[in-house]
């Protein structure tokens, strides 16, 4: 270490990249109160969806279920038992019957752990963790397979698929270890994710979607690889209305890009418009591409948000 490095380290707290964190967390993550709320959510989810059988969630995968799904041409090697002889009689053509395979659902919770989620005392990240934990508990309670990964420019951490709600403490422990770091690159990270997880399922992306390369690419990776994307867009309204005034240099917490700007009320108003437009663009993209979308405002209690998700549908069918 040269003398220059020593100087840089000493000066680090005073550099513009230094962001003081909240000295003490407001309350402990996943405390008893939180766990009671989880139990309540699990009960509510069962009452709301009383008609649903456990592990009877339909998947896009065809297999050995009992519900007819489609026909396809016979190919050598297919099981003769699957041939539709009635069709052969009528059309003189060998067709194989396909059934929807019934299996336990795989739920993947993809938590964005980039630096932007840690902005402003990591409130967004904490909220994302609470959402992930609650959804994981509901999934585990419904005997689904739940896996959690954290994403920045890569898949940073992984919790292997697991079931049984007793495993929720593993989930808590995993999420507690998640820290905000790294840049956001959803496309790269989710490519890695789909490569690592062959079993398709519900992919719940919990993120602020602050991706310099574009959030669309990341969601499309899930769509193209036959995952069922479900976007929980974590939003902090203060991002759209920063309390700035005067001559400042703005820098991105992830990329460090700097922009000199003189902030006036007119500039702030324009930025707010731009921010609202960005939120609308995300929602429009999801709606257009039949991706379940839900905006998760950090100011809303997480249990209320989860209930809203349930009521609107799309998470449990």
């Amino acid at each position, binding site marked *: 270490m040269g003398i220059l490095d020593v100087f840089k380290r000493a000066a680090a707290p005073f550099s*513009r*990249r230094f*962001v003081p964190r909240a000295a003490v967390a407001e309350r402990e993550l996943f405390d008893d109160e939180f766990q009671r709320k989880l139990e309540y959510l699990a009960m509510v989810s069962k009452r709301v969806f009383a008609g649903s059988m456990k592990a009877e969630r339909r998947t896009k995968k065809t297999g050995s279920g009992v519900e007819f799904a489609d026909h396809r041409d016979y190919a050598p090697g297919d099981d003769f038992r699957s041939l539709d002889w009635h069709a052969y009689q009528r059309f003189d053509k060998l067709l194989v019957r396909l059934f929807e395979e019934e299996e336990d659902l795989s739920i993947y919770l993809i938590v964005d752990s980039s630096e*932007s989620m840690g*902005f*402003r005392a990591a409130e967004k990240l904490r909220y994302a963790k609470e959402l992930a934990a609650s959804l994981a508990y509901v999934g585990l309670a419904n005997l689904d397979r739940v896996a959690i990964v954290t994403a920045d420019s890569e898949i940073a951490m992984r919790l292997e698929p697991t079931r049984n709600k007793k495993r929720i403490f593993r989930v808590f422990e995993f999420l507690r270890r998640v820290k905000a770091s790294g840049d956001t690159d959803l496309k790269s990270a989710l490519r890695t994710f789909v490569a690592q997880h062959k079993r398709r399922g519900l992919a719940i992306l919990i993120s*602020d979607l*602050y991706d*310099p390369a574009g959030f669309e690419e990341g969601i499309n990776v899930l769509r193209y690889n036959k995952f069922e994307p479900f976007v929980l867009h974590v939003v902090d309204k203060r*991002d759209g209305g*920063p309390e*700035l005034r*005067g*001559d*400042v*240099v*703005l*820098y*991105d*917490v*992830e*990329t460090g*890009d700097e*922009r*000199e*700007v*003189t902030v*006036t*009320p*007119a*500039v702030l108003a*324009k*930025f707010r418009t*731009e*921010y609202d437009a*960005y939120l609308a663009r995300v929602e429009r993209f999801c709606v257009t591409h039949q991706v379940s979308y839900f905006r998760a405002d950090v100011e809303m209690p997480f249990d209320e948000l989860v209930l809203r998700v349930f009521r609107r549908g799309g998470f449990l069918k």
Partner: protein
Amino acid sequence: MNGLHFTGVAGATLLRAMAALGAVVVVLYVLKLKRRPIAVPFAALWQRVLRDREATTLFSQLKRLLSLLLQLALLGLMLLALGDPRTAVNKTSGRHVVVLIDASASMKATDVPQGAEDAVRKDTPPRPRTRLDLAKERLRQTIRGLSGSDRMLIASLDATVTPLSTMTGETSELERALDGVRAADVRANFAAGLRYAVDSLRGLPNAEIVVASDGALGEPVDGQGPVDLSGIKLSFVKTGDSTSSRNVALTGLSVRRYPLDKSRYEVLVEVTNTMDEEAEVELQLYGDGKVTDLVELRLGGRESTSRFYPNLSGADRALEARVRLKNGEDVLPADDRAYALLPERRRARVQVVTRGNMYLEAALLLDGYLEVVDVLPENYPAEGRFDVTIFDGVAPAVAPKSGGIFYLAPPSDDHTPFKLGDKLKSDKAFPLGFDELEDKHPIVRYLSLGEVNIASARELEPREKKDVAVGRSLKGALMVAGRRKGKPFVALGFDVRDSDLPMRVAWPLLVMNVIGWFIDEDTGYISSYRTGEVWSIPAAASEKTATLALPDGTTRTVPVKDGRAVYLGQDAGLYELALPDGKASFAANLADPTESTITPAPTLTVGDVKASELEGFTVGVRRELWIYFLLAVLGMSAVEWFTYHRRVTV
């Protein structure tokens, strides 16, 4: 800049300072602004906002350039102000001006355009605009036209000259002084005003005397001769309109009671037409506020007429005469009223110490307003306070509360304020009588005593020089008057029964005159004073000062000398002097035909010097330019501040 001259910091120094400070400003401007670093979660969102802002970069640079130019302009203006630039017109050093404002009675004339209400006058109810108001307005403009190096002094010119400000360039002080000028009912003492102005301006550069007047000031000549202006410039601010100067005036009013019937009186009024043309006037006489007489008169151009009102009764105290033009408006109301006060009637108490004197008793019976108490010599003094005590053939020691003493044939001079001399007898060669009389003395005024025959008498010798031998025979004084400790006395050196005096009309009149003089009710009573003169008003001899209430209700403390209060009266009307034992009232009138002749003079001439029109006091012409430069700096800074805080220029 050719027409500008720097009278402050030199031009070359200013250029060097501009170069150095301008360079500093440019360097400071070139320095990059240290901006505050602020973290944002997603800088890409700012991209579009800033992209639009970049579209205006050219405008921003232009604004920045404009800002630099603005700073340089501010610097330049401040340096120019330091240079104190002046135009060639303004390069001369400051003027010294004494303004004499005519505050005489004629300045109360209303023959000026009435027009819009003047902001200076805030009277309630509003009064007509006068020549003085117009002069003040013009002088106000003059004050505002003063340059920074000019100095002015304002003085009011009435019977005296009164400086109202110092020699100053402060316009607020001068305007205050101007507000303080008010016209009095007097003639202006022009000579005194000019002498004061010349003395004030002696040795000062660019001296100038400004006279604001209607020009009816007369020749400035006084006891020292004509006034010499010593080469000082004279300017004239003319006010008044010669075409509408219509005025008639009351130039005299006097009244007196009849000596033997004090409930009746006679009045003399003098009316003057100051115009060249004939005038019809209406003259009214009021007694105690009630109309006593009304008469219409026709007066020729410049004519004066007197009107005598004999044998009037009814009024107890105040008389007022009013005159008005029958056709048209009189522009000077100040001389349309005159006031006079009748001598106060008092019931005087008279103590007669005698063993019996029929002639004396008969004389005292003539005045019903006397309360006579007869006392035998051995019973003197009687109870109570008396205004007059008559010692008939006795001369005891004077007891207190005896008032004035009238000695008739005193037998001894042990207790008298005079000495008794030789016995005088009448004989054929030198019949005894009054051969010399002080006929202006109140007790013998208008009396015919020269033919009185006296059989025998005692010569009277005054003990003090100020005592007066009112009547003398060739052989010695027969009648002496004087004062002791403020109390008057009169002595007659013979018994009236030893003369034919009781057979004459003069006897009771002499007794009345003596009593009248003792109680200050002499025939020389002044029924009204004339304004502009120093008045000597009878007052208590023991006092040093007295309080005088003026016609406008204000009071003044005036000095008292030898029993007379001294005051230079400038306002017509009724006055009241506070005395230890009561109050004395008197009236004052303008009564000045010259001042009432108000036709304004077109020009003003002092000796050989003819006054010029006032010039060089146009507002703003002679102002120093540095004020405007600093005002421009202030204005530009205000605009810059406003636009900066409204985020227009950032």
